[in-house]
């Protein structure tokens, strides 16, 4: 066959020409030139695509990108206060069921259209058409109606008082506002939007799915305008690749919790070439003890575990100082959480004493304590892919072995552990708080109702579980501030005294940036990156 003689060269020529075709078509698009950072643009790496930028939905929208384009009626600050944003002021009725918001009159959407009461109502209606999806937010379950008072005033009517309304309105989604021209046919924003038109300081001007999103300064912005003209969000799914891109000066900064591994963060920090910053706490890493059955149904065993672990050393050695040691479930800046609680500090002797008192004793020659022939063996589930949980679990296993407690470790998928804990199949699980602006009320809410957070089930074995539930319900619908403070104090104290949680560390946003970027203060927020404050001298 003569054909075969030419087959291989032919194949080679064909593939080369195909390849040339592929690359040239991409070049023709001209949108993915080699990254260039100039004084007018800041480039950041992010592991996931920004998504369709729909203000009223969740995945695959990235909160950090939604917060760039859309704004809320009020804003939650790192110190726990709530201040005006698109609403310049508000009045709350005597019975705490009606909130009247006076909208700013100088706000325009990025496409120049007006922000007014009609548009606000339209947004609320679109969100509430999908109530079930937002039922995690307590306010949604209490909202009766939202009505227009005049062109720049709206009234939000609840069926009963629900104090965290302002905190929940401040959250990044779903109560943020889309311009009229962004609404789809029939206003079904739960499915899609026509265009991401917001009032925020940034406008999406260029987008290549899974590659990058380019945001430009909104020249119509009513507030303080950002210092740089553009923010480029490059999508780099692998944390190692983000580190390398930053080292290669393809990125100006790395911002956020868990964006790169702590080893890489420490390596970059220790190189001395870059600037670093750490935010105030944004969530708490803790262990959640299952009190439904087994040894952890006993308070003394739960306390003994807490005394047995050298938390300071664990947090410092594993998180390289990027997380702060936590002795209480919430830090002081969280509303209602600034209460005096006695920390449980490392004391292995005390741990042994508590176990002896509880009847878990070491028999001759044994290394594991037992009671009525049952060994003191506990299961802990950690997230297998979490670079911090695994070493922490291993370290705790060693610490507990010293006091005669066997800790069996199991690495699992993100959601498996909590499900097992709820089903009473595991003793201990890693757990984290939601963080502001929804804490502590969302934590309280989740603790009192069965849902996937696991706290409700974990506390079923507590002697005062019913009392805690009652108090939680009172505080969410109560109208008296003093009474609320007292209720929170009671609830958080009960949880603390019952050692249901073992607070480990406060997680923070870790920021590392190129030396030519001017200093800025990172926010203690999961979604609010302070781009407006950033400037580059390059």
């Amino acid at each position, binding site marked *: 066959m003569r054909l075969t003689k030419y087959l291989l060269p032919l194949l080679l020529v064909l593939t080369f020409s195909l390849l040339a075709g592929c690359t040239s078509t991409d070049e023709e698009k001209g949108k993915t030139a080699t990254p260039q950072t100039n004084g007018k643009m800041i480039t950041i790496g992010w592991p996931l695509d920004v998504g369709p930028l729909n203000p009223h939905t969740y995945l695959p929208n990235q909160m950090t990108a939604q917060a760039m384009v859309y704004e809320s009626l009020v804003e939650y600050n790192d110190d726990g206060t709530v201040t005006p944003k698109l609403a310049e002021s508000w009045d709350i009725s005597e019975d705490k069921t009606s909130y009247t918001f006076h909208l700013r009159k100088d706000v325009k959407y990025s496409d120049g259209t007006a922000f007014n009461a009609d548009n606000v109502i339209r947004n609320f209606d679109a969100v509430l058409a999908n109530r079930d999806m937002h039922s995690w937010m307590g306010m949604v379950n209490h909202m009766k109606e939202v009505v227009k008072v005049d062109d720049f005033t709206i009234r939000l009517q609840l069926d009963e008082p629900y104090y965290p309304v302002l905190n929940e309105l401040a959250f990044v989604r779903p109560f943020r506002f889309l311009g009229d021209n962004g609404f789809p046919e029939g206003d079904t924003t739960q499915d899609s939007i026509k265009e991401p038109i917001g009032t925020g300081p940034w406008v999406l001007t260029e987008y290549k799915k899974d590659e990058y999103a380019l945001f430009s300064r909104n020249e119509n912005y009513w507030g303080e305008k950002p210092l740089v003209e553009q923010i480029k969000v490059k999508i780099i799914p692998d944390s190692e690749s983000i580190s390398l891109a930053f080292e290669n000066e393809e990125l100006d900064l790395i911002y956020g919790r868990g964006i790169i591994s702590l080893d890489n963060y420490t390596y970059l920090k220790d190189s001395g070439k870059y600037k670093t910053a750490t935010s105030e706490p944004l969530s708490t890493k803790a262990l959640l003890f299952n009190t439904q059955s087994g040894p952890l149904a006993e308070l003394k065993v739960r306390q003994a575990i807490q005394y047995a672990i050298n938390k300071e050393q664990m947090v410092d050695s594993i998180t390289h100082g990027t997380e702060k040691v936590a002795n209480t479930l919430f830090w002081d800046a969280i509303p209602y959480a600034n209460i005096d609680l006695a920390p449980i500090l490392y004391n292995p002797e005390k741990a042994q004493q508590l176990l002896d008192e509880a009847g878990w004793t070491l028999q001759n020659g044994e290394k594991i304590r037992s009671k009525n022939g049952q060994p003191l063996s506990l299961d802990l589930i950690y997230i297998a892919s979490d670079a911090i949980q695994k070493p922490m679990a291993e370290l705790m296993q060693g610490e507990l072995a010293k006091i005669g407690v066997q800790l069996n470790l199991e690495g699992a998928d993100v959601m498996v552990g909590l499900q097992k804990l709820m089903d009473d199949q595991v003793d201990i699980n890693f757990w984290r708080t939601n963080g502001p602006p929804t804490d502590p009320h969302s934590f309280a809410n989740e603790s009192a*109702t069965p849902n996937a957070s696991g706290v409700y089930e974990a506390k079923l074995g507590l002697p005062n579980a019913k009392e805690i539930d009652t108090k939680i319900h009172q505080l969410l619908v109560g109208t008296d501030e003093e009474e609320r403070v007292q209720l929170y104090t009671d609830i958080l104290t009960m949880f603390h005294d019952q050692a249901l949680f073992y607070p480990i560390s406060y997680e923070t946003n870790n920021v590392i940036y190129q030396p030519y970027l001017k200093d800025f203060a990172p926010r203690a927020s999961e979604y609010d990156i302070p781009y407006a404050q950033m400037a580059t001298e390059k």
Partner: protein
Amino acid sequence: MYESTWMFCLKRILTLPFVLLGVSILTFVFIRFVPVEPAEVILRLARVAPTEEAIQALREELGTDKSFLLQYLLWGKGVLQLDFGTSFVSKLPVAHELLAKLPATIELAIAAFVLILGLSIPFGVISALYKHAIIDKIIRFFTILSVSIPTFWLGFLLLYLFSLKLGFFPTNGKGTLSHLVLPAFTLALPTIGLFVQFIRSTILEELQQQYVQYAQLRGLKRSVILMRHVLRNAAIPLTSLLGMTLGNLLGGAVIVEQVFSWPGLGRYLIESIMNRDYPVVQCYVLIIAVIYVLANLCTDILHRLLDPHLMMKGRRD
């Protein structure tokens, strides 16, 4: 083309629906073995507390509240109408999502393929011709190394060396030829190692054959013997290996795309598995199955064209 070859193709193509049926059932079952259902995963990843109401509403929306059998039948019915369902996460048609990402993966695979053919043949031939010489030892050392290094580690090694230290290529992204070099090379290298070893041993075997000695006695030039006879005969087993290579490339692309932020199918698959995006994973597996079957078919046809024995057998059949 001969009738027997057409028949051969036809038979193979007729088995495709059965292969796809088997693959789709297995995928459907296996993906549901993964603990935690899509509704809860989606809510948790959205950082909201998955309340019963929200989970139920989402189950209804996704269709995961129906029985397993009904889900499969509905999905199958859709597939027969070329409707592969809607992504749980993006709410867009799965076929549209995958087709949008397919070109990037094909581009990467073709580039890797070019490198495999362009590098492994000359190195394999040199290694065989200079058996036991220094050059042969160097080539063999590198082939063993390339087969042994894990792909992700190789990717980072190349990134560190050629992007960070030497500044030749960007570390991530897609667009220009310089963006393509490192990912394609990372994807191709393990296969290049495999091919070089294979070509070397095949050529050494062929060189021992009587026809080569006969040709030498006839006074034919060594290069002619090599090009016209030895390489052609060595190409026959190589074609079988080419079919398997495609599998390696598609499998390797998953890791390479992740490391180099290459916006292709592999990266999307990882994301979809994390998000329990069943329709995407199911459609992806179907696409891969079709590609596999067709690639193997092409390999077999090529094999028949190159190997006269098979053709003769076909004619006798």
